[in-house]
C-alpha cells in the first residue's frame, strides 16, 4: 500500500484540524494552530487535480494575513513559486517569515483615491497574474473549495462531540463559518449559528471604516459569506476582543489570537445563557504573533477606548446601522444581506411605526 509521497501531496495533516478543548460543561473550543492551512491545502489539491496548478507552477494571491502564511508553508514544501500582494499594514514578523519561506512579496505602497488599498492590491494582483502566464490564483473570498474544505472540521466535530446545538465563530473570508455551519446544519436543521464581526466591517451591513481588530470582518463582502446560514450576528470591538483573549488564556490556558478572543466572548455568553445546549466555537490561530500587542499590558492600556472591563452581555440592536463601537448583537434570522438591509434603516422604521 505504501507509495512514495509526491511533492504535490506534501502538507501538514496533523496541523490542519483543531484540538477540541472542553471549556465548561456545555462549551467546547476548537483551537487551531493555523486555521487557513486546511482551506489552502484543499484549494491547492483541487487545482492540482484538475490542472489549474501545474507541478512547480506559480501561485498569485492578495492577502496580508494568515491565508498568505498557509500558502507560503505549502508552497515551500510542494515546490511552488508564490507571489503575494500586500500593503504596508502587514505585520513585520509575518513579513520576515514569508520572505524566509521564499515568497515574492509585493507591497502596494499607496492606496488608490477610490477603493483604497483593496483596489490597488487587486490591480497589482491582476498584473502579477498577467506577468506569469499559467499561474493560479486561489481567490479565497470566492473559491467554493474554501468553505467545502471545512467538511473535515465538521467531520471531526460530529465524531467527537456528536450532536451540536450552537456554532459560534468569527467571519472574514466566509469560508470557515459558512462551510462548517452548512455541513453541521445538514445533520441538525435546528443548529443555531452565531457569526462574530467587528464594527466598521461591511460583511453584515456596517459602513466601511478603520478597524483595529484584524483577522475578521472585511471592507468588501466576500462571495463565500453565505449570510443565510446565520441566526445571530455580534459585532465585537477591539478592546473587548483583546480582553477576552487574555481571559481565555488566564481561565482556560488557551494561548490564542484576537479573533479567538472575540469568538470566546460571544460563545461563553451564549453558553452561560443556554446551559442545556451544546456549544462549539472556533479559535482560528495561536497567540505567539501577538506577544508584543494583545499579551502586552502597556500596549493594551494605550488602546483607544480601553476600560479594562469586559461587558457581561451584548447590547441588542434593531438594525446593523445601529451598531456601536462596543459589543452589539442582532437577530439575523438566516436572511440575505439584501433582505436585512431592505428591512429598513432606523429612520425608515421610526416613520413606519409612526404611520
Amino acid at each position, binding site marked *: *500500500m505504501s*507509495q512514495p509521497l509526491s511533492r504535490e*501531496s506534501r502538507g501538514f495533516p496533523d496541523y490542519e484540524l483543531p484540538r477540541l478543548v472542553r471549556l465548561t460543561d456545555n462549551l467546547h473550543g476548537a483551537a487551531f494552530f493555523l486555521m487557513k492551512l486546511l482551506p489552502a491545502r484543499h484549494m491547492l489539491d483541487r487545482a492540482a487535480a484538475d490542472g489549474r496548478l501545474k507541478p512547480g507552477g506559480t501561485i498569485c494571491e492578495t492577502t496580508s494575513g494568515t491565508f498568505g502564511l498557509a500558502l507560503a508553508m505549502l508552497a515551500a514544501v510542494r515546490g511552488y513559486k508564490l507571489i503575494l500582494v500586500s500593503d504596508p499594514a502587514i505585520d513585520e514578523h509575518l513579513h520576515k517569515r514569508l520572505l524566509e519561506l521564499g515568497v515574492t512579496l509585493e507591497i502596494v505602497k499607496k492606496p488608490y483615491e477610490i477603493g483604497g488599498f483593496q483596489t490597488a492590491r487587486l490591480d497589482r494582483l491582476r498584473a502579477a497574474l498577467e506577468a506569469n502566464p499559467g499561474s493560479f490564483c486561489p481567490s479565497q473570498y470566492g473559491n*467554493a*473549495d474554501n468553505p*467545502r*474544505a471545512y*467538511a*473535515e472540521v*465538521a*467531520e*471531526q*466535530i*460530529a*465524531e*467527537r462531540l*456528536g*450532536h451540536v446545538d450552537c456554532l459560534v465563530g468569527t467571519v472574514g473570508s466566509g469560508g470557515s463559518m459558512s462551510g462548517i455551519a*452548512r*455541513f*453541521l446544519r*445538514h*445533520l*441538525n436543521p435546528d443548529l443555531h449559528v452565531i457569526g462574530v464581526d467587528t464594527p466598521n466591517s461591511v460583511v453584515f451591513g456596517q459602513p466601511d471604516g478603520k478597524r483595529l481588530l484584524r483577522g475578521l470582518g472585511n471592507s468588501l463582502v466576500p462571495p463565500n459569506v453565505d449570510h443565510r446560514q446565520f441566526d445571530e450576528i455580534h459585532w465585537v470591538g477591539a478592546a473587548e476582543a483583546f480582553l477576552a483573549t487574555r481571559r481565555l488564556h488566564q481561565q482556560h490556558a488557551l494561548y490564542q489570537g484576537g479573533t479567538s478572543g472575540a469568538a470566546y466572548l460571544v460563545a461563553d455568553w451564549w453558553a452561560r445563557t443556554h446551559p442545556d445546549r451544546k456549544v462549539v466555537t472556533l479559535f482560528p490561530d495561536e497567540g505567539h504573533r501577538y506577544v508584543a500587542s494583545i499579551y502586552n499590558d502597556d500596549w493594551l492600556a494605550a488602546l483607544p477606548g480601553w476600560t479594562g472591563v469586559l461587558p457581561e452581555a451584548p447590547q441588542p440592536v434593531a438594525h446593523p446601522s445601529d451598531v456601536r463601537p462596543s459589543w452589539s448583537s442582532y437577530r439575523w434570522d438566516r436572511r440575505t444581506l439584501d433582505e436585512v438591509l431592505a428591512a429598513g434603516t432606523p429612520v425608515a422604521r421610526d416613520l413606519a411605526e409612526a404611520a
Partner: protein
Amino acid sequence: MRLGTRGNQRKEHGLGQVNGHHGEILQGIFPDDAGRLHRGLVTLPCNIVSSTAVFRPAPGNLVTVPDDKLKAAEAARLTLDSLGLHDQGGHLTVESTIPVGLGMGSSTADVVAAIRAVADAHGAALGADEVARLAVRAETASDSIMHGDLAVLFAQREGIVLEHLGPALPPLEVLSVNTAPGALVDTVKQPPADYDDWEIQAFRPLRGMLRRAIRTGDAALLGRVATASARISQRHLPKPAFEEINAIAASTGALGIQVAHSGTVVGLLFDPRNPATVRRVAEAAARLDTIGLPPALHFRTDAAEVRHVA
C-alpha cells in the same frame, strides 16, 4: 483456493442462506486512508427476509431453478471456477422471501446464497471478503449483506470494506413504507448517483457522526445520519411523498428516516429501548395510512444483541 482436497470433500448438496436488508443508513462517496475516493454504503440489515440456495454438484451443465435467476447462476459459475472446478456443473435452486425491486438486496441475496451453497457443497469455507469479490464480479455492484450484522462501510462496486465501524448498528425499530408500490426500480441497472462537489464533502461529517453513533450505541445520532443521507439521495433518486413521510417521522418521535438509495422503500427509525415506541409506531402507521402509504413491514434490528445473550 481454500479447497485442498478438491472433490473428496464434496457433499451431496450445499446450503447457502443470507438475510436481506432495508436500504442504507448512509450511502455516498468516501475517501480511503490514502485519500482516494470510493463509492460506499452502510447497510441497514433486515433479518426477517432472506434468500436460500441449495446446490447439488453434478458433471456437465449448470442448471438453475428458477431459470431467471441469472445473476445467481453467474455467481455459482464464478464460484466453481474460482475453486478450480471449471468442468463441474450442478443443480442450483434459489428461494427468496425478499421483495424484488424495492432496494432490499434481493439480487445480492440470491447471489450470496448461491456462492455460499456452491462453496458449502465443495467443503470450501469462503470468508465474507471473498464472497464479496465474487458477488461484485457477478453483478457489478453488490450490497454488503455477506458481512451479516457487522457495521461496515462497504465499497459496493469493488466488494471491499473501506472501514469497519463496529460489531453492529445500535438497535432500531423500523417501520417500512414502500413509496412506489407496483413501480419496480431496476436496482442493478441504475446509473450511479452523480454527486456534486458539496455533497462529496458533506459525506465526511455524516461518516464522522456515524462512527460516534456506532461506538457509543447512540441510535438518535444514527437517525440524524440516516436522515441527512436520505436528503442527499432525494436529489438523485427521489422518493414520492418524501417530505410527508419525514414530517410524520418527526412528529411521532422517530429518530429519523432512512431510504433504499437504489429502491423505493423508506424506513422510519425508532428507538426500541424507549417504552413510548410501541405507541409512537402505531401512531406513525396510522398517519402513513392517511396519506395512502400503509406500512408494509415492521421489524427490529437487534437480533444481533439477542444472539449475544444466547
